[in-house]
């Protein structure tokens, strides 16, 4: 029977099945998406572990390093010099075996990699091999937590300022594009080809070396000033140069990108229509230009929040800023795989979570987007 008049109850049933299908579609999407993202994280972290010990090559370096330091230590120890050479040799061998056991070098590489991977995925960051935190702990978690505030302060202040300032200024420029300031920003946008640390060197040269009004680097004076206010002011003084170099290096390109983006949206027909209707400029901006660009702006903001975590290795190095980027760099120099893996896994999880959540945010801000539909 093909054609039957629909009764009200049937109509309700159709609604329920529609709701069910939405639920099914979304949950299927969530499951598939979470699984693929998890697989991505696993593969990414495993690759990082493999690279961090160069497929076993780093083991050789560490083995010879252990042998070297222990042989030296025992040979130079006056208390051991009177020992019989054979006994001393045995002592050296025993100590080396102990140290290799501590470093996990006696376990086959594949097993060790698998262990690193499962520990990382369960966020069991474990203990560092060579590094210690300033407080003296070998816990990777504590080493990272100790450096996190410094990085968050530097990256947070500079990136948030950059984000809001460039959107605000870009809106202003897109309102009257072609004027002097607009042309200036367009002309200056190639300056963002130069990385932040590079501007940092120039800023140090000008403000620290020549005018001597701001410090060369570091986070506080040594000894640090007492009192919260004095301490904060001192911190602020040290923050100015690294934060400004981070801002300067992306400032003009960021404004230019947002401005071009807004301009493309302001030439849409519905914006012309709104203008023709005589809507006030502020309403056009907030309802007709900012609204459709919202998904992009949110994506940028989310990615910005993630980059706070990675820190700015080279800028931190140039300014001797005790942040995460520098710690990671030192960890690599000391073959400290747990710290490298710990930093990577946290970044990977943050990224995966953000990518996952963004899909839902898109659906929330843009009614045309339906989750799980192509």
């Amino acid at each position, binding site marked *: 029977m093909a054609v039957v008049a629909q009764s009200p109850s049937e109509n309700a049933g159709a609604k329920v099945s529609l709701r069910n299908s939405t639920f099914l579609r979304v949950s299927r999407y969530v499951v598939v998406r979470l699984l693929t993202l998890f697989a991505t994280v696993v593969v990414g972290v495993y690759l990082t572990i493999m690279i961090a010990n160069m497929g076993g090559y780093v083991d050789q370096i560490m083995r010879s390093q252990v042998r070297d330091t222990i042989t030296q230590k025992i040979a130079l120890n006056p208390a051991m010099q009177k020992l019989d050479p054979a006994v001393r040799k045995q002592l050296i061998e025993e100590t080396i075996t102990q140290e290799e056991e501590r470093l996990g070098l006696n376990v086959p590489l594949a097993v060790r990699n698998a262990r690193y991977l499962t520990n990382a995925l369960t966020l069991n960051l474990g203990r560092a091999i060579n590094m210690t935190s300033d407080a003296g702990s070998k816990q990777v978690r504590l080493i990272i937590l100790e450096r996190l505030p410094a990085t968050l302060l530097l990256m947070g202040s500079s990136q948030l300022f950059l984000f809001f300032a460039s959107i605000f200024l870009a809106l202003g420029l897109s309102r009257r594009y072609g004027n002097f300031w607009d042309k200036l920003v367009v002309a200056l946008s190639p300056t963002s080809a130069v990385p932040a640390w590079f501007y940092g060197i120039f800023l140090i040269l000008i403000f620290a070396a020549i005018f001597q009004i701001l410090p060369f680097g570091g986070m506080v004076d040594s000894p640090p000033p007492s009192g919260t206010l004095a301490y904060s002011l001192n911190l602020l003084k040290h923050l100015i140069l690294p934060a400004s170099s981070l801002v300067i290096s992306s400032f003009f390109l960021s404004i230019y990108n947002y401005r071009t983006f807004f301009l493309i949206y302001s030439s849409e027909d519905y914006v012309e229509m709104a203008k023709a209707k005589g809507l006030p400029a502020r309403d056009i901006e907030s309802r007709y230009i900012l609204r459709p660009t919202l998904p992009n702006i949110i994506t940028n903001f989310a990615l910005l929040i993630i980059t706070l975590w990675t820190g700015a290795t080279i800028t931190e190095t140039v300014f001797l800023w005790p942040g995460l980027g520098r710690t990671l760099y030192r960890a*690599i120099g000391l073959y400290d795989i747990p710290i490298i893996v710990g930093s990577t896994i946290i970044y990977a999880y943050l990224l995966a979570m953000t990518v996952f959540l963004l899909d839902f945010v898109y659906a929330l801000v843009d009614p045309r987007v339906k989750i799980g539909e192509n």
Partner: protein
Amino acid sequence: MNAMKSSLQNLLKYPSAVMGTLVVLLLVFTAVFAMIKIPYSEAIRLWRGGEDVWYQNPKFAPPAWINHFSSKKYAESFSARTTDGSMEKTVTPGNEGTVSFAISYPLDFTYDYYPQEMILYVTSKYETKQPFVSVELLTPDGRKIRITNASIGEKMTYRFSQDQKLMTRLRTEDVFPALFSDPETGELLKGQYQLQISGTTFEPGSDIDVEFVFHGQVYGLAGTDQSRRDLVVPLLWGAPVALAFGLIASLGTLVLTMVIAAIGTWYGGWLDELIQRITEVNLVLPFLSILIMIGTFYSRSIWVILGATILLSIFTGAIKGYRSIFMQVKESMYIEAAQAYGASSPRIIFFYLIPRMIPLLIPGLVSSVPSFVFLEASLAVLGLGDPILPTWGKIIQDAQANGALYRGYYYWILEPAALLMVTGLGFAMLGFALDRVFNPRLRDV
């Protein structure tokens, strides 16, 4: 062809494009000049050379042209030797096989600072009887100061500042103010000095040669670093290295990205899926950390780093952008026509799909050069620069390691920094203009 021509004409309307092109051409010219003037092996020998190659230069000397910006003139460093005729040597045979040598050097001293050091390297040939030299300095006011007398072996190095006897004779710890001052006023005396070395050999066939090295405060066109190296060598050679690294990395990345995106889009299915998954995995990998790890554990060679950079830069967001454009192109009529007359898949990919993207490739190619040039410099600043090649980043790293900013050796950082900056900005400006010409969406805004 016509489209190309009009694009070029459009390009000339942008002043930034013209400036950028000039900078790039100048860089290419510098790179070629550097490679012809200082061949590769010679550049490596000079850059890796120690005291034996660079003993003639002072350490940490700013370039000589800073004298133009200062009312007080710094002494310029130089060296002269008898072997190439820059120092005059007259030979007079005496009796019983002795030979007298008179070697003189006119020292035009018109600076406002005393020299840092003066050194004589005397070499001689003899069988059994050692030759003998005496050194004197004639001052502009006609005094004659005896510096030293010595019989010399095969090699003798005489440092003016280290000679205890000379210090006692001049009644001072500091030799140069005593040598280059008016004895009555105690002030620095400018004018024509004359270094006179007279020597005697006592055997037939015996010979003396002298090299005079004068260390002032400034040196040459670019100054020197902590190992006395002339910075002209790494500054010149930095250009070909930076260009090669930037261009190869940028070209390699873009072309590979495009080919992979085209293949993935054309064949679709699991291949396309695989490429997308790899891109997502690559997003998780810490790019800079991996490069640092490769540099620390494996090899700091610029070519290894270059390969790793290209590999890690292929599967990025760009591949998704190309993919979406290829998706549109794939549906075009001319592709359908090509399929209809039986073109093979590789033919379609390489002769129909990819050529359509070349206008998009050019701006991307030019504007991604600076990021790679600066990547090399960044790694060098972290101490992971190529161990053999001289690069701009390595100069900055040497300068940072020696506290150049703190100790006031600004030239040492500013010279490579200026070159990096000019290179980066030149490519960025050109790329920017190209983007506006080739990307019609941006043309009006």
